[in-house]
């Protein structure tokens, strides 16, 4: 069923009784061309683009819970392409361009809102770093503006300009950055993939990976039985290691928990996405009025989708320090997502040493904004067995070869990225 204002009116006049399911609930077929493990944003986007762009529709997405139950539904909804390195920037810019046309593409309003992402800087050294990054963006034709203190003040007068511990000296603004309603991304891709014939199989957990005589992947054992496939694609952020271990994959990944927060509903006060350079705080306000924010990971390895109080307090300290007016806003809910922290802070979209096994992993806590490009490039790789050029640096062997994509220059300690 195509969604439009007209469809809403027609349905309303018949008592909203005739809406049909957004996706089917099929039983798994014995064999698929492609099985994607993980019904999150990346997995569903991969299925969608496989079907739409590459004509591969005999595809199953296998999800152990409900679709969108992972990080696509527990992030702070920010999209941007303000990256420094040549291995990252064109990829994220492709993603941003896909975001810009996404809703009409999959006929679902995910509320892509290009309200601008402003990275604040607080020292000369940080300004130089941001300028370097902004210039890299400009070199790739990505919009970037370096704002001085007064320009920042006009954009966000509520920031702590006069009583801060660290001065707000300016910011790097990407106007095309913004936010997206996160759950809707999973639902929109799922609906679009389903309409093109993809089977979305929820509540089906992969328990093993079956290998053939040559070591090649033949299919997956699941809680709904064995399902065969020609190609197996992993997009199981947070559980990559667990699934990868079923095929003896050795991965440069450590799992960590990141908390996020939402305040009570408030009338609009924060128009942009703001990030704090003297800490790690980031904030935006949802269309529903909740302030959505977060800061650092909890730093220890964790598969528990919940964090601890010290990190909560640290986040609030940074938030109130940057925006004093938040002091009387009330935090409503805190939650946690588990992420694949890779050893250089950048993702992997690549073949694996195992035949027929493809890997999409290591998104750290930047995976949401990457969803469209990740799905597109992964689909490209699976369909053509050939790396899409914008993801060519996201190789699994880059660590061994010494070509890490260390956007922050932090080195091989996953919790530093």
């Amino acid at each position, binding site marked *: 069923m195509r969604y439009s204002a007209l469809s809403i009116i027609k349905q309303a006049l018949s008592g909203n009784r005739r809406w049909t399911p957004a996706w089917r609930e099929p039983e798994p077929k014995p064999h698929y061309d492609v099985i994607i493990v993980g019904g999150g944003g990346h997995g569903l986007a991969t299925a969608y683009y496989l079907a739409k762009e590459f004509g591969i529709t005999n595809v199953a997405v296998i999800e152990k819970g409900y679709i969108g139950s992972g990080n696509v539904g527990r992030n702070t909804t920010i999209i941007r392409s303000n990256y420094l390195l040549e291995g990252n920037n064109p990829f994220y810019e492709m993603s941003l361009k896909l975001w810009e046309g996404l809703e009409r593409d999959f006929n679902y309003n995910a509320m892509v809102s290009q309200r601008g992402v402003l990275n604040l800087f607080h020292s000369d050294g940080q300004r130089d770093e941001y300028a370097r990054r902004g210039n890299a963006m400009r070199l790739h034709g990505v919009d970037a503006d370096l704002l001085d203190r007064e320009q920042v003040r006009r954009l966000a007068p509520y920031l702590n300009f006069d009583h801060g511990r660290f001065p707000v000296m300016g910011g790097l603004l990407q106007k095309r950055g913004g936010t997206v309603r996160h759950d809707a991304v999973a639902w929109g891709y799922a609906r679009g993939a389903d309409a093109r014939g993809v089977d979305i199989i929820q509540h089906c957990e992969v328990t093993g990976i079956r290998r053939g005589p040559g070591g090649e992947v033949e299919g997956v054992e699941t809680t709904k039985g064995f399902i065969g496939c020609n190609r197996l694609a992993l997009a199981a952020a947070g559980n990559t290691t667990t699934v990868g271990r079923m095929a003896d994959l050795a991965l440069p*990944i450590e799992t960590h928990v990141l908390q996020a927060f939402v305040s009570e509903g408030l009338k609009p006060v924060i128009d942009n996405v703001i990030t704090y350079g003297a800490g790690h705080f980031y904030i935006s306000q949802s269309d529903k009025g909740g302030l959505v924010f977060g800061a650092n990971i909890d730093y220890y390895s964790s598969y528990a989708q919940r964090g601890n109080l010290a990190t909560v307090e640290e986040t609030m300290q940074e938030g109130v320090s940057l925006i004093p007016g938040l002091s009387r806003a009330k935090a409503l809910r805190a939650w946690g997502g588990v992420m694949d922290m890779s050893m250089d802070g950048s993702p992997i979209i690549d073949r694996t040493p195992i035949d027929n096994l493809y890997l999409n992993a290591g998104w750290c806590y930047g995976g949401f904004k990457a969803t469209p490009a990740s799905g597109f490039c992964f689909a490209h790789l699976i369909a053509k067995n050939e790396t899409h050029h914008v993801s060519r640096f996201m190789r699994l062997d880059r660590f061994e070869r010494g070509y890490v994509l260390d956007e922050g220059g932090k080195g091989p300690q996953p919790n530093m990225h």
Partner: protein
Amino acid sequence: MASLITCPHCGTRPKEEFSVRGAVIARPSASEKDEAWHRYVYVRDNPKGRYQEYWHHAAGCRRWLVVNRDNLTHEVFGVTDAQASREGSR
């Protein structure tokens, strides 16, 4: 854990007194192959469940500790001094 760590030298302390480095992996000796060094620096077993992790009691005794914990339930089974546990394992 996550909230409190019982340091073998200082007693029970809040998490923020510590900094976490990551999985406990032995540093290869100089004579080991490149592959061993690559695995040491870049590859992580990353199991779900029992985990041995290096924590530094930065605001306390400044000792490096091995925290033996469950990364799913966050239960802590034990905390030992990294040096003592290294020597003990020899």
